[in-house]
Structures are given as structure tokens and as C-alpha cells.
């Protein structure tokens, strides 16, 4: 296959994965959230279960006028959604759905994924600053403070995983989770990291990624009851849709990273290597959606924190816990 064809296929696969995942998660948010509130949710769009609601929403957004507020920093304002979306798409490049189904398996995959996903912070700050709106500005600054605070526990949690696996490649980490954790006679049982010492790390990762995604209980950058809509207040039309898409695609990518790091990725305990070859994507995607469900579930249950409480949670609880987690993991690694 020539380079160009391969590139096209890979780009399409990454975009398809992102869009498909995001649309499913958006639909799940609408439907699961509705039923958790004892409502029906989408019902008419597309037929029986309102499955076409995300598409209908996207179409509606496209029809709207793309407004740029008077006095906004035009170029920055228009660029911001792209930056946000790019930071999210970038993560999908290194996600392995099965041992062979991966766009690009980088040696520093975990590092790359965390680095590129923090690009969204920049986009959010750009949006908040350029909108020429006080609510947007506060939202943007909140987002910056929050994402800086939570990038740290997120990375530190992954450091522990990297120590345990001995690699930074995402495929490598998943493969390391296939190594037998213990044996019952002849049978070697491999367990994902969440069950072999990284439970605290997983909790930290989930909490920090909730904050990274600015979802309830950490949705202060948007906080519609305080800041109307935070940094997206002024956005309309397709640019708003891009923020919207980035949020849900980010949810998929964060769930995917957590799956890879803690839930064994495409592995399932007791499944042979050949079966993983075939069933890998299915297993991986189901785990991703399971985690996304957790995110949705939390959102429809909890109120939001206050900005200072969020900061103290990060600096006083999560980061020390993550450091402790690294120390314990490293000790075990050296001792055993």
C-alpha cells in the first residue's frame, strides 16, 4: 500500500472512531440522562428510540448563523474550536483497538496522548479570552486554572502505570497487562492493572479526567447557572457544535485511555491471543462505553464543586495520593 492510501485510511479511521464514539456517547447522554431523571428523552427523531437526535442536533447547529461578537478577537475566536477539537482528535491516533488495529503506535504513546489532550486547555483559554465577554473570560480562566491543576494528578497517575508496565507505549502497557498475575496450577491468569495494585491510580485518573473534560461535578468553566455558558457563551452554529463534539469525543478518548491503562485495553482475562486479535475492538469499545456510562451517571447525580474546593481537592488530596501511589508502585516494582 502506498503511503498516501495508508494515510487516508488511517485518517478516516481516526476521524470515524472519534465521530462514531462521540455520537454514541452524545446519544447515551441524552437517553441515559433522561431516564435517570425519569424522563423519556429523545423519542421521535429517526424512529422508535430517537436515535437520530445527535444528527438532528448537528444539522440544526449547521443551519444557524455563525456569529462573531462585536469587539471579539476575530482570528483567535474563530480558531479556538479547531484547537480544542484537534487536541481531542490527536489522542485517537495512538489508541490501539486490537494488537494490530492502531493508527500509529508510538513508543511514547502515553506521554503523547496526555500532552496532546492538554492542547484543549489552550483552545478553551483562547475562546474565553477572545469572546469579549466577561462570563467567557471568567470561564476561560477557570478552565485554565482547573486544567493545570488536574493535568498533574492525571500524569502522575499514569506515571505509576508506566512504572508498573515498564513502558510508555500504550500497546506496551496493554500487553504488559496480559502478563500472568498469578497461576492456578497450569492456568495463568492475567489481570488488568485496576486489580493488580492500581485501584487508587484508577480513581485518581477518573476524577482528574472528569475535571479535564469539565464535566459535572467539575464543570465550573461552563457552569451555566453562574456563567451562563462560560467560554462557549458567545459561540453559535458549527463552532458551538465543535465544542460540543470535542467534549464528548474527549469523554471517549479519556475513557479509552483509562481502559488502556487500567482495564486491560482489548484484553479480557482468560481470552487467548488469537481471540483477542478478533474480538479486541469489541472488548475495547465496550469497556470504553462502560466508563463513559460512569461519567454520564456521575453527571446526572452530582452538583458541582466550587472553584476553590476543586483546587484544594487537586492539590491537597489527589496529587499527594498520586505521589504516594507512585512510591508504592515503585517500591513493589523494585522489591518483587
Amino acid at each position: 500500500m502506498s503511503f498516501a492510501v495508508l494515510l487516508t485510511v488511517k485518517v478516516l479511521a481516526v476521524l470515524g472512531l472519534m465521530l462514531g464514539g462521540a455520537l454514541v456517547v452524545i446519544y447515551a447522554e441524552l437517553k441515559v440522562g433522561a431516564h435517570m431523571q425519569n424522563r423519556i428523552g429523545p423519542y421521535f427523531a429517526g424512529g422508535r428510540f430517537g436515535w437520530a437526535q445527535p444528527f438532528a442536533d448537528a444539522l440544526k447547529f449547521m443551519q444557524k448563523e455563525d456569529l462573531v461578537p462585536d469587539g471579539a478577537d476575530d482570528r483567535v475566536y474563530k480558531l479556538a474550536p479547531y484547537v480544542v477539537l484537534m487536541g481531542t482528535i490527536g489522542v485517537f491516533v495512538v489508541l490501539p483497538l486490537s494488537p494490530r488495529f492502531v493508527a500509529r503506535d508510538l513508543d511514547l504513546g502515553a506521554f503523547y496522548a496526555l500532552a496532546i489532550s492538554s492542547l484543549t486547555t489552550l483552545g478553551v483559554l483562547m475562546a474565553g479570552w477572545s469572546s469579549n465577554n466577561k462570563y467567557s473570560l471568567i470561564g476561560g480562566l477557570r478552565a485554565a486554572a482547573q486544567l493545570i491543576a488536574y493535568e498533574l494528578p492525571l500524569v502522575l497517575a499514569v506515571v505509576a502505570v508506566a512504572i508498573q508496565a515498564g513502558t510508555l507505549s500504550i500497546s506496551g502497557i496493554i500487553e504488559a497487562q496480559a502478563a500472568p498475575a498469578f497461576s492456578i496450577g497450569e492456568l495463568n491468569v492475567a489481570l488488568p492493572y485496576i486489580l493488580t495494585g492500581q485501584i487508587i491510580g484508577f480513581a485518581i485518573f477518573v476524577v482528574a479526567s472528569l475535571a479535564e473534560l469539565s464535566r459535572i461535578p467539575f464543570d465550573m468553566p461552563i457552569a451555566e447557572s453562574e456563567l451562563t455558558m462560560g467560554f462557549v457563551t458567545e459561540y453559535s452554529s458549527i463552532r458551538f457544535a465543535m465544542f460540543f463534539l470535542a467534549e464528548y469525543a474527549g469523554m471517549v478518548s479519556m475513557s479509552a485511555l483509562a481502559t488502556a491503562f487500567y482495564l486491560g485495553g482489548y484484553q479480557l482475562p482468560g481470552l487467548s491471543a488469537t481471540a483477542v486479535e478478533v474480538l479486541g475492538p469489541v472488548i475495547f469499545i465496550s469497556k470504553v462505553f462502560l466508563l463513559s456510562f460512569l461519567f454520564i451517571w456521575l453527571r446526572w447525580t452530582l452538583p458541582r464543586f466550587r472553584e476553590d474546593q476543586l483546587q484544594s481537592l487537586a492539590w491537597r488530596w489527589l496529587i499527594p495520593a498520586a505521589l504516594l501511589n507512585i512510591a508504592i508502585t515503585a517500591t513493589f516494582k523494585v522489591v518483587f
Partner: protein
Amino acid sequence: MASTKLGFPLKGIFKGMGITLVTLFKPTPTVNYPVVKERPTERARGVIALDTDACTSCMLCARECPDWCIYIEGHKEEIQPDKPGGRVKTRAKLDRFDIDFALCMYCGICVEVCPFDALFWTPEYEYSEHKISDLLHDKDKLTEWLATVPTPPALEAS
């Protein structure tokens, strides 16, 4: 920070999550509106019906209305006696009876003060219009509503 004196940390959050999870599998009380219609109670003040035969255009309702949204015009009509030499009767004839439902507060005072039972409440509620001026229901439209007047509900024993 959150005070977690109840032993198990984050007990409240898990309890809340349990409630939402249970609700997820419960049936919803939603009424699928345009397909299934909800029937309000008999006393619901939906729209006012007019019995033109009973109305004597005495104007009591128009006068008692708190925001004066009832417009009545009428004239006297002479009824010639059947037999020659009989008395000539006069009868009030209603020319115009409009209720502006854009202005109406649905208080029901007009229904209450009507001494001849010409006005009735009906629980019908589907009469929204694209133009606000179309909410001015004239005599004919108000008479149409008369068919929907429900029988009064039975009363609780006192």
C-alpha cells in the same frame, strides 16, 4: 471540605448514585402528548363556553371582568304578539360577544357572576393560535365550546 462523619467516605454520593441508577430502570410518567392526550379535571379552567340563548346581554360579566376582556354589543328586539291585541314583548338580542383570551386571566369571575348561566368553563386547552388576534373568540366560536362542557363532578360527602 466535605465533612464525612458518617463512617464510610462519600456515602452520600454513592447513595445518590444508587437512586439515579434505580430510576434509570423505572417507567417514566411522561404522557406522550400529541399522541396521548391528558384529560384535565372537570373543573379545570380551560376555555369559556357561551350559551347564546341564555344570555340576556346584561353586561354583568363584562363589568366584573378584572381586565375587561369581554366585549358585548346587543340591541332590543320587539316580538310581535301571536294574537292581535297582545302585548308587544321586547327581547335582548346579542350582536357581539367576544372574549379576548390573549387578555383573559382565567379567573372565572364572569362565569360566577352570570345570573342566567350563560357562561361555562370547559377543560379544553388546545386552542393556541399563530396570531395573537386569533385568540379573540367571537360568539360562534364560544358557542362551539358549549359541546365540551362536562357534567359537574360528584361531591365529597360533607
